[in-house]
């Protein structure tokens, strides 16, 4: 197919207009992706250096005594609660 110069310019302009409309509509509908996070509870033994990271459970708070240390059987205390971003 042979196109003259005018037709090519016309096709280019129409393509640009369509691309602009599509981009505008995409901008309207596209939502930014939110990173998926998971909340962890960091437990530390009150006597030895044992540290364990477990999934956060409702009711956890920093300072809470929760469970027993598998190394020395002392209590474990919640030392930190934090969110970690999951990599896709």
């Amino acid at each position, binding site marked *: 197919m042979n196109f003259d110069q005018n037709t090519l310019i016309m096709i280019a302009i129409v393509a640009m207009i369509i691309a602009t409309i599509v981009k505008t509509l995409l901008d*309207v509908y596209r939502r930014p992706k939110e990173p998926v*996070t998971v*909340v962890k509870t960091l437990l530390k033994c009150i006597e030895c250096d044992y540290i364990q990271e477990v999934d956060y459970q409702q009711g956890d*708070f920093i*300072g809470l005594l929760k469970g027993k240390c598998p190394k020395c059987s002392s209590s474990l205390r919640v030392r*930190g609660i934090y*969110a970690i*971003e999951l990599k896709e």
Partner: protein
Amino acid sequence: MADSSWLDYVWQLMFITFFIMIITGTNQRIQMKIWIYDIRSKLNVIRSYAESSRAKIIDALRKLGARDPEYSIAKYIDFFAISPVEIEPIDIIKRLDHILRTEERAIKNFFEKLLPNAGKYERSLLESSLEVAIVLNYLYKVIRHYILLGEKQNNWVLIMQLQLQMPEIMKVAATYYKALDAFMSAKPVGDSVGAIVAYRLIEESNVLSRKIVEDTAIVEARLASRRVFIIKAEGPGSNVGKPGKVLSDLVEEFNGNIDLVITVDAALKLEGEEDGEISEGVGAAIGDPGPEKIAIERATAKYNIPLRALVIKMDLASALKPLKKELYEAAERAVDYVKRLIVENTLENATVIVAGIGNTVGVAQ
């Protein structure tokens, strides 16, 4: 040849159409319609945040045995506080403090009446959640007001300004909506770093006494051979306490015989700075509307007590959303930083006050 003349007609028609559109301002109206469409779609998202946050609070209230929570929340969702008169500065802090305390008391009373059998902890979480829902509801109403006003007055400048600001507004709305989850489930947020530093200092020191005054914990301890008073909001509920008032009263109790005051808080970072950067300075690191900050400044200035500040930097989203691991690690580093500040700036047996500022949700003492 026939093809070429047909294209010429189309070309001319296009240029005439564009010319007429520019002369009559039709292009601007089309642009405005696109902006309005975009703003309205974003406004729908904000409305869904506002409605969902309200529904979550109503659901939580119902689970705790509240009667007719829909009616009660509908009554309080538009709750507001009017700023004091600023053109007359005399007593402005006293008047502002009075308004803030009245607001706080009104919301507390509302939940006490609504949930007479619930504990202070559950009520504090719902108080903060209601504040988040109030912000989202207000944000929705303000954006709706401007879009309707712009349409009514055919004011494309207003619509354009709104359109340009919408990405930032959407970020703020999404941040508040995410904060709701943290407050309802009592997870520490970014703003809790000050409280975490205070908690960790308490954990590492030899505690001598503990008391709670005005929703604020005061822990007297021995740390690095110094007498240290550690102040933080009473946790683990959602609460910021009255650290300024409590610190000021403590300074007065000791007739100003305090060798050093350190405040630790979260601070908004500048673009380009990393989340969790720690900066040291002087002054009161506290982001309250005024009364608590001025109480610290007045007390330390009255007795010439050095006032040091330590801030952990983060953006608004990180401050309100569940605490990120990087910020938790920064709080751990800040504990050592505070200890170093105490040792470097005071002699043994000195008396020091450390105030961990911020919301203590999910952090005990």
